[in-house]
């Protein structure tokens, strides 16, 4: 059973990484709150996401409150490229979750009662960061951009106490203390991104977009805070985000370009001709994006990234944070575009691969990761609602969709060639809203049959995987439209994957238009297709 109103914004960061031995907590001076009256503003967002079960409808409006921080895009040294039009102006930085699918974003300064309307400039949903602009200049009067500083390790003699804001009311702002538990590598499930992230404790009154302070310096921004625990994105990553935002075309944060596994079985290591003294990690899958994706091969044994040797469990000795997962190198050691050498053992031979640090990207996978801000794509013909299989659609089964969604649909997530219905080759482009993605062949479903006299006898069909329409293979939603333009006879014929409730249906060509009109009127559907 699909849970229609279960929110999927709860999907968050799960934490992985090395724990640190914490030194004794020392007490630092409480930072002055006044400068924040010019650097942070309250943010209220009215969000309305799309209903992927009834894709022409939107779901209930929900409201979120948090903060946004005043920022200025940094200068890029020796930049030859055209720069962002917002280069010289101030902007607001907050989390992507705060403003995803927003219908109205209001920000309020501490010293001005009425809210100002903010507009989204840029959102990196994978990194959970967003930039906002406010066109009313009055808003920016006397506001100052945040000065960012790198976060310091808790292993140093410096106090590990950190501070964030606590907002009691629009007028009552206070400081709240907490501490850094560890710098880890967080996996954001909704995007498949692995990025450095700070795990904090004690800042339970904080919220999304709140500043994170250490030694009176701003070292990060809170992504979420709940039950006395919080997660924050460190300043180094924020600066890289702002730097990329200032470029001519946005690139996401630096990211690894592969999945890996530990290789602790001696027999397996022997089989792959890996010397026992060589520590490293086994590359299980090369991603279509990210660092090393252009040179690594599945089955390579990666022993070094740059000058950093990898341990058997994927850790490096980070200069600031000690033994940590290698992804932490993307925090402060590598920037997108840096040249990088990778040492690998391939088929028993050590080789050095030359590559460049690359960012996270939308990877054009068979089942696209969750997207926000774009209307669902669909086509209705004779009451058959065609949609591409997406994470947004699967999320309709609720937070436990990984165990509750139909198993045949979940099988497409694994990228296993055996279960694919098409060759998983790149097939050009796929569009979502006004954005274009390189994409693999998609899985097109008849998610439901909207009842009409034309489709009597087919109405129980749901989540049927479409193979062909009128003899044409269906790899994308646009194929559905084209296939319906070319019937082979006076009937359209749709064929489904074996295992569906039925294997084929036919619809009379002559009666289809009339049926579409009836369905549109009967069910008050504004558009019969949305691409």
């Amino acid at each position, binding site marked *: 059973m699909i849970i229609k109103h279960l929110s999927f914004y709860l999907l968050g960061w799960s934490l992985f990484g090395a724990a640190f031995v914490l030194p004794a907590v020392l007490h630092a001076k409480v930072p002055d709150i006044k400068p924040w009256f010019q650097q942070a503003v309250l943010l209220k967002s009215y969000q309305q996401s799309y209903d992927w079960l009834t894709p022409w409808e939107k779901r209930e409006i929900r409201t979120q409150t948090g903060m946004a921080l005043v920022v200025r895009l940094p200068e890029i040294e020796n930049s030859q490229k055209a720069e962002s039009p917002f280069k010289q102006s101030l902007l607001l930085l907050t989390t992507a979750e705060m403003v995803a699918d927003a219908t109205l974003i209001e920000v309020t300064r501490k010293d001005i009662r009425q809210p100002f309307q903010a507009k989204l400039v840029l959102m990196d949903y994978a990194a959970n960061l967003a930039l906002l602009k406010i066109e009313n200049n009055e808003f920016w009067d006397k506001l100052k951009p945040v000065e960012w500083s790198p976060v310091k390790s808790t292993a140093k003699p410096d106090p590990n106490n950190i501070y964030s804001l606590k907002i009691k009311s629009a007028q009552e702002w206070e400081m709240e203390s907490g501490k850094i538990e560890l710098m880890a590598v967080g996996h954001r499930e909704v995007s498949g991104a692995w990025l450095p992230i700070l795990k904090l404790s004690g800042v339970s009154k904080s919220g999304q977009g709140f500043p994170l302070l250490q030694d009176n310096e701003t070292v990060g921004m809170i992504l979420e805070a709940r039950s006395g625990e919080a997660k924050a994105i460190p300043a180094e990553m924020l600066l890289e985000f702002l730097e990329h935002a200032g470029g001519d075309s946005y690139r996401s944060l630096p990211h690894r370009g592969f999945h890996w596994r530990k290789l602790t079985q001696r027999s*397996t290591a022997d089989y792959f001709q890996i010397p026992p003294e060589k520590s490293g990690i086994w590359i299980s*899958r090369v991603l279509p994006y990210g660092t090393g994706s252009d040179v690594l091969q599945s089955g390579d044994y990666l022993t070094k990234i740059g000058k950093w040797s990898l341990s058997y469990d994927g850790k490096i000795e980070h200069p600031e944070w000690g033994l940590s997962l290698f992804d932490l190198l993307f925090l402060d050691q590598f920037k997108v575009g840096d040249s990088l050498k990778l040492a690998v053992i391939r088929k028993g031979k050590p080789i050095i691969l030359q590559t460049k640090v690359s960012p996270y990207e939308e990877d054009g996978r068979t089942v696209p990761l969750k997207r926000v801000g774009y209307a669902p794509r669909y086509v209705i013909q004779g009451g058959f609602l065609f949609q591409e299989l997406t994470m947004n659609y699967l999320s309709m089964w609720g937070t436990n969709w990984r165990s509750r969604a139909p*198993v045949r649909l979940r099988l497409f997530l694994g990228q296993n060639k055996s279960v694919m219905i098409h060759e998983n080759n790149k097939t050009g482009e796929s569009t979502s809203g006004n954005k274009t993605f390189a994409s693999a062949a998609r899985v097109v479903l008849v998610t439901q049959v909207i009842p009409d006299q034309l489709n009597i*006898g087919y109405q129980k069909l749901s989540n049927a995987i479409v193979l062909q329409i009128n003899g044409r293979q269906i790899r994308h939603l646009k194929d559905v439209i084209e296939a319906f333009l070319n019937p082979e006879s006076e009937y359209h014929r749709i064929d489904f994957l074996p295992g569906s409730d*039925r294997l084929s249906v*036919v619809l009379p060509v002559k*009666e289809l238009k009339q049926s579409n009109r009836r369905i549109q009127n009967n069910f008050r559907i504004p558009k019969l297709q949305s691409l």
Partner: protein
Amino acid sequence: MFHSKAKFYFVLVCLWNAALTPVLASPDKIEQSVFRITNYQQSPNWQSPWKMKPTNRGLGSGFLIQDNLILTNAHVVSDSRILLVNKISNPEPFLADVVAIAHDSDLALLKVRDANFYQDLTPLELGGIPELRSRVRAYGYPMGGQELSRTEGVVSRIEFGTYVHPGIDSHLLIQTDSAINPGNSGGPVTQSGRVIGVAFQSNLRLNDVGYFIPVPLITRFLSDIEDGKYEGVPEIGIETSSLVNRHYRRYLGLPENTSGILVDRVIPHSSADGVILSGDVLTKIEDKQIDAAGMVRYGEQQVTFFIEAENRQIGDLLKIQVWRKGKFHNLSLSLKAPPFGAEMRNSYDELPEYLIFGGLVFIALNRNYIHSPGNLTPSLAYEHWYRELERPRTRRDQVILISRVLPSSVNSGYSNLRNFIVTTLNGKSVNSLRDLDIMLKEMPPDTLHVVFESEWQKMPLVLDYKKSLEQQQSVLERYGILRSSNLSALQNKDSQ
């Protein structure tokens, strides 16, 4: 017919470990011939296939029919270690043995060892299909009481439905609002002094709904075993879609006054294979018209056309008519056993097949295993259900899994591995457990590594061959396992 995607809300009404609460009643002739059956049952542990689960005491019912035979449900007497039968108001139990068992239709016959048991008992006669809304009476020992219970109700529906005991099979069943509770299983349902069915399951989602196995399936079972061997309920072996949609009927050119059901798929090696074609419209079966939803007239009811196969024996001929390429064709097919493997049906009375090598536990995927807690994963589901539908040519005789690992130095690093689907061993396809056993035994002595690869895993599983052999016995001893393999599907029968 079988439904691989059927959802089961039914519960078998055999009662395990129930408390005994005596209730007095005055017996009549029917009641004297209805017995309480106690089954001390032990089923295999599918996670550790060399072990058995703790013994359970199951309670059910049964009744005397011809030739001193007691008819009951298969699920009442499955995996039995010792079977005891009690007469009404008599505390003395009699030892009994299973004479015949039909797991596909949940029926079994018992015989009591002591001939004195049968003194003064009258066998019950079998009747026919009851009329809808007619009154019926169910006898049995619900909740394990020592005294017989009788409840009355009406016949509310006659239809095809899933039999929970085999899990995959669907047959005719009759629904009644007569209370059928745990312990009633195997008891007779009567009308006018004759047996019209065997109570066997209820539906947890509905109030006061019980089901009984109708007489045609019982008589089919009794005829089937006349030659001393149970062959099973035959099946046509086709998958169909309705033709309720008039446009589809026109698309197929079916004459206006003709109805029928569309054949989507003919299952290889089934009764229909080579006779019926995918895309045919099945219009008649045994001269009965099939409607657009695939139903035929059966007494007062419309019932799925599969009914015409299930009341016959394997080898019987079945007349059919199909509409193919604009013409009617009258055909006949010889009925065969269902075309799916034994692994698709719940397994009883057999010990699981397994093989242990280097501490890796290999099993063949089956219904019992996939329905064990935590095993219904997408990859196992694909191998069990979808591969045959989508890529039948890539299907292997058995799907071999490393279900778990018995930790040992030879398999160090793999101890948490579960449900690794084995595709190849040292590059050669693994088609069955026997295949694997032979491949391991015939491995050249100078082999360094045994490499198990999987379509589902990027990283192969590699063991040192010599160490695996050296440690084989010590692994078995450490984990208290007597045999390194069971490849003969040993019978899990009454061991007395």
